[in-house]
């Protein structure tokens, strides 16, 4: 075990948790959020939706299976959800300095250090979670011994995080028969993979790109970080796409953007949903699904245009989990059907999206 360097998590309300450093020797500030899932840290850390956030993992034993290598598949890193770590800092209870897994090539600590991300362990992550649960998400700093402490608490939600994580130019993946535009607001790779296995060509466009100029069969609105109200340009484009009428499928931030385009409003949840065990019920049925989630904002469906209806609701707190158009092939969900990390139970929504596309194409040909 290396020499121990101390580190601390300082919350906006002044509460301080002392631990030790295992990541990069640097101090940062950001929004402190917790995630209760029990596995999948390589996927979570590279999820662009975490941009600007200090991530607290409630599962205490982290680093067990190391970090996989950077093999490529279909132009994407095979084992990650984007090309870099997006969190600002990682907070865990018990870090495994030694790892064991056939596909690991380095330790979590090494990976964090390479990406200049600080990590802190040996803190009471359950207590941090309870504070956030009671007081709501708050800003915080992670400070590492011997590095300058940021003087201010930086609020990432004031920035346009989407603009920071979206791609810079149009990129095309695969050569499938369905042409799907993917609006990249901070897209997880597995959305692309989920489309590619379903015989699609994925045209990934920047968040503010006017994709309606492209010839496409369907639109996929990706997940992403921060406040949806920052994405005015995307919402404008979505409204245009709704006029075009070809199938639309939104995930997470994509759901919030489609909902805003459909007349609904959004609000910030007290402490968000970040876990692998969120139950959602398909409205009007007895079909309940376990979903992977990562969002701090939610949709208020009360002002939804009358052509739209709730699709899924959260069984724990009744919040909206998705909407759909009553007649047109537009729908979106707040959870992550692409999973990684998390349960894959709702991957049928991709099939549903593809069906919508095929039906629309067939109708067009007729």
């Amino acid at each position, binding site marked *: *075990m290396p020499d121990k360097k101390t580190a601390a998590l300082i919350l906006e309300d002044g509460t301080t*948790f002392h631990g030790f450093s295992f990541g990069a020797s640097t101090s940062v500030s950001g929004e402190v959020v*917790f995630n*209760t*899932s*029990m*596995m*999948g840290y*390589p*996927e979570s850390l590279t999820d662009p939706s975490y941009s600007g956030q200090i991530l607290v993992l*409630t*599962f*205490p*034993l982290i680093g*067990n*299976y190391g970090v*996989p290598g950077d093999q490529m598949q279909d132009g994407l890193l095979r*084992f990650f959800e984007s090309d870099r770590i997006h969190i600002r800092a990682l907070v865990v*209870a*018990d870090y*495994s300095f*030694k*790892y*064991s*897994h*056939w*596909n690991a090539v380095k330790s979590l600590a090494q990976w964090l250090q390479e990406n200049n991300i600080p990590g802190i362990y*040996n*803190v*009471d*992550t*359950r*207590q941090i*979670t*309870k504070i956030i*649960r009671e007081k709501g998400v708050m800003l915080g700093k992670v400070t590492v011994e011997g590095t300058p402490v940021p003087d201010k608490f930086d609020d990432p939600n004031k920035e346009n995080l989407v603009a920071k994580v979206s791609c810079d130019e149009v990129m095309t993946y695969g050569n499938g028969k369905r042409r799907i535009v993917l609006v990249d607001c901070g897209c997880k790779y597995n959305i692309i993979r989920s489309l590619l296995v379903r015989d699609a060509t994925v045209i990934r466009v920047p968040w503010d790109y006017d994709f309606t100029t492209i010839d496409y069969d369907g639109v996929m609105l990706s997940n992403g970080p921060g406040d949806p109200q920052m994405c005015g340009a995307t919402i404008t484009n979505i409204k245009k796409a709704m006029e075009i009428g070809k199938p639309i499928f939104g995930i997470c931030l994509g759901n919030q953007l489609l909902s805003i385009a459909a007349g609904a409003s959004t609000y910030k949840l007290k402490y968000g949903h970040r*876990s*692998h*065990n*969120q*139950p959602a*019920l398909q409205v009007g049925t*007895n*079909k*309940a*699904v*376990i979903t992977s989630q990562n969002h701090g904002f939610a949709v208020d469906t009360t002002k939804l245009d009358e052509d739209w209806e709730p699709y899924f609701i959260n*069984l*724990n*707190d009744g919040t909206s989990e998705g909407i759909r158009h009553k007649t047109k092939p537009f729908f979106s969900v707040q959870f992550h059907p692409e*999973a*990684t*990390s*998390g*349960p*894959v*139970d709702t991957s049928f929504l991709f099939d549903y999206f593809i069906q919508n596309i095929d039906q629309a194409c067939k109708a067009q040909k007729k």
Partner: protein
Amino acid sequence: MQSTEKIEKVILLGSGALKIGEAGEFDYSGSQALKALKEEGIYTVLINPNIATIQTSENIADRVYFLPVTPEYVEEVIIKERPQGILLAFGGQTALNCGVKLYRSGVLEKYGVRVLGTPVQAIIDTEDREKFVEKLDQINIKTIQSHAVTTVEDAKKVAAELGYPIIIRAAYTLGGLGSGFCDNEAELDALASKAFTYSPQILVEKSLKGWKEIEYEVVRDRYDNCITVCNMENFDPLGIHTGESIVVAPSQTLTNAEYHKLRHLAITIIRHIGIVGECNVQYALDPNSEDYRVIEVNARLSRSSALASKATGYPLAFVAAKLGLGYGLHELKNSVTKSTTACFEPAIDYIVCKIPRWDLGKFKGVSRELGSSMKSVGEVMAIGRNFEEAIQKGLRMIGQGMHGFVANKELSVENIDEALSHPTDKRIFVIANALKHGYTVDRIYELTRIDKWFLYKLENIIRLEHEIEQYHTIDSIPESLMLEAKQKGFSDFQLARTVTKCSPAEIEEKIIEVRNRRKKLGITPYIKQIDTLAAEYPAQTNYLYVTYNATAHDIDFPQDGKSVIVLGSGAYRIGSSVEFDWCSVNAANTIRKNGLRSIMINYNPETVSTDYDMCDRLYFDELTLERVLDIADLEAPKGVIVSVGGQIPNNLALRLKDQHVPILGTSAEDIDRAEDRHKFSQMCDEMGIDQPRWRELTTIEDIYEFADEVGFPLLIRPSYVLSGAAMNVVSNKRELEHFLTLATSVSKQHPVVVTEFIENAKEIEIDAVAKDGEVLIYAISEHVEFAGVHSGDATMVFPPQKMYVETMRRIKKISKLVAQGLHITGPFNMQVMAKNNEIKVIECNLRASRSFPFVSKVLKVNFIEIATKVMLGLPAEIPHKSAFDLDYVGIKAPQFSFSRLQKADPVLGVEMASTGEVGCLGEDFHEAILKAMISVGYYIPQKNILLSTGDARSKADMLSAAQALQKKGYNLYATQGTADYLNQNGVHAEVLHWPDSELKPNTLDYIKEKKIDLVVNIPKNLSETELNNDYTIRRSAIDFNIPLITNARLASAFIHAFCRLDKKDIKIKSWNEY
């Protein structure tokens, strides 16, 4: 509920006596299911002969039948009760097998009984291996390539094709019975022949030794909604039965991709098979890829599901019962938060570690090697916030003198390589030993195939121990190191021993020194809640554990003097099991009923006492002095009850009192006066109470001298055991010599207690409750067997049927004297011997005993409720009810698990060997014993009985039984001496030659060919040097699944009972009808 038809009455099948592979977890499952049904206003009928369980207590089921869980009896109950529904998934394999038979024979259909939950066809699809593989093939899910065969020859052929090593499994058996690995054809030959005695079909499979073993607990409702409540990873790789393996939850070495691949497969499987309720899916996972095989699916609640419930706080059995009634998962609430839905997957923010408890030392000749068949008798679950903390806690909880992973008595291992690659019950300590001897993690991995992650963590503990060793006084341990050690699960004992290297005599003092220094430094543990959602939502229950990896408590401590702590029983083991759980739960209930707060401390996941809604606060944690003090410091209780959880809490009494923890009931000093042999003897002498003569001796010469004085046989109880069982009876000087030189060491440090052994004496038990030294209520029971059979293995009769009034009177008098002398307030139990009205006290325990639930339920007076009230200082109403008023008889009979303990000699002696018990009621002795014997697996023989009845005396004892058998038309076979004796006395018996004889007809052939329906083999003497022939007969009877009785008195009682009564004479009466 949206059920199609109204269900008003439901039968639930229990699992019967506790046995290896089927233990207390089913009391928990069944109790939960009954609770769920009750909530719906459904009238519940329970069939379970296990009288010591919670589920067979008052106010759980509406009706209880203490009857065998076999198709005949269940059918009779169905005819009598006419229920609309039946639940099969809550009573283990016993209930499931019985249910499948009732379905196949058309009984369920005939009486319109609907199976609630998983349909029987789905159960059959998972139980029949061939059908199971076929079913999974349909959805392209990989199973272990396996071939069903019905002959040994076919098995060999298949094995040759697959290539060795192979594994064979018997279909329709519990816990891997009749299964095992074979490296060559000879091994296959032997194992396959045996497996065919359990099952007409065996499976030959390629062995995947070294793959990871992973389990998922899956739930499905009738709307096809599925969740996986928990996954678990075996520390030991495939090849060691999951019941024999250390298990952690959740999995630790699986990536997201692996975890969710297996989770998704589990859901696909459960949907395809059509489970409604709960099931368990076991996988083998390649440690070098994502390749997998499905090992098996259990379409019922299981040991793993009980563990998963305790590990997560998700009440699987309760939910499964509700789903069986037609609810959807989304229509049920999470029992912990009471606000969120039950349709979710628990998020754990700690790690649990399950460790099996073995008692192999209790058996003669048993193989200690672990394999694909289960031998453990119990388990513990430890909770921590890192692996080191959890496993060190767990290793202490096991209760076999270990203090964690390190700082134990040095284990001598001759060949570490060999011991690592051929694991025994000591495996984990062999790893500690190897690490200390400089073995690298890589080397240990090569030999064990235990994932390196676990080994690295164990290495951390060794490294920390090494760091601590650098200090030689408690005061010099640096604060940061002290904290780190506590965070990695080191106990104060481990710290004290590692630093001071003090003698056992000083350790107690040193432990307290560590504790005081710790407290001065502010290093104290925190209390965390298990809440199913990793703190995402507030929890409404107090399911708690203790950890040093925290900086805040989850709960407040009222410290208002209204909390009472009950210390539970710990791991089930031979000698302490579900009966103490019953006592603990009843004590907690009584505390609650009287307006006080009940706090339970226990760590056994197979119990009802560790169900978080049975008490106000449940600390799922250690029952060590240190931990109880930690909790007492925080809770400042009114007092602690140490007398309902068996010996573990009892042993803490004096030590807790020394640390100023108030003990409720009998004082700690008086408990010590009963426990300390010398003090107790002295008291008996003063009061004129007789005891068998005994002496504690330190030299072999003294022992011989004592033997000359009192004569043989003698009971020898060494304090230090080299090999074999700890206690033994020797009949002559030669045996004494043999035992003293081979099995024990005698010295000043290791004294030996030698007691005179009285032959042919009656053994009698008194269970009683006293207040301030005055007996309030008592129950006297007698053993069917003579003294010499451990009281836990004896067949007990209450009220006694064959006892002199004078004996009874004398026993009562002695009980009163003892209660007075020890100022007893609370429960106590005494064992006495009686011969010709002379009474000698063998033992006295100032705590509840194994037989408390039995006598309480037979007499219908709750002894524990009275005892608890008395201990709380509350007035207790004593019902004016005497055993003389009962117009029925209760019999408690032991359940043995010899069939699982390969090579063990199935003979009874002074060491307890049974793993469970039943208690049945009858209108007379004969009816009660017949029910009890059938409940523990005997059956009324068809026609052929083999007698081999030992020495002259037992031959004579058995004569009238043999005459009864002949009269009844049975064919009697006997070994030479017995046949001669019988024929001389006018009973015709055909001679079968001894197993070692070439002559035909031979006993062994008859047993193997299953021509015998009952074997009675009475050992010739009480010594260990038993004739090999007798051993072979007994062991073969067990291996070929033929009922065996080895005690002449019990054999006579059973034979007379079934000669006198027919099956139809057995009354189908529920408990409340007596």
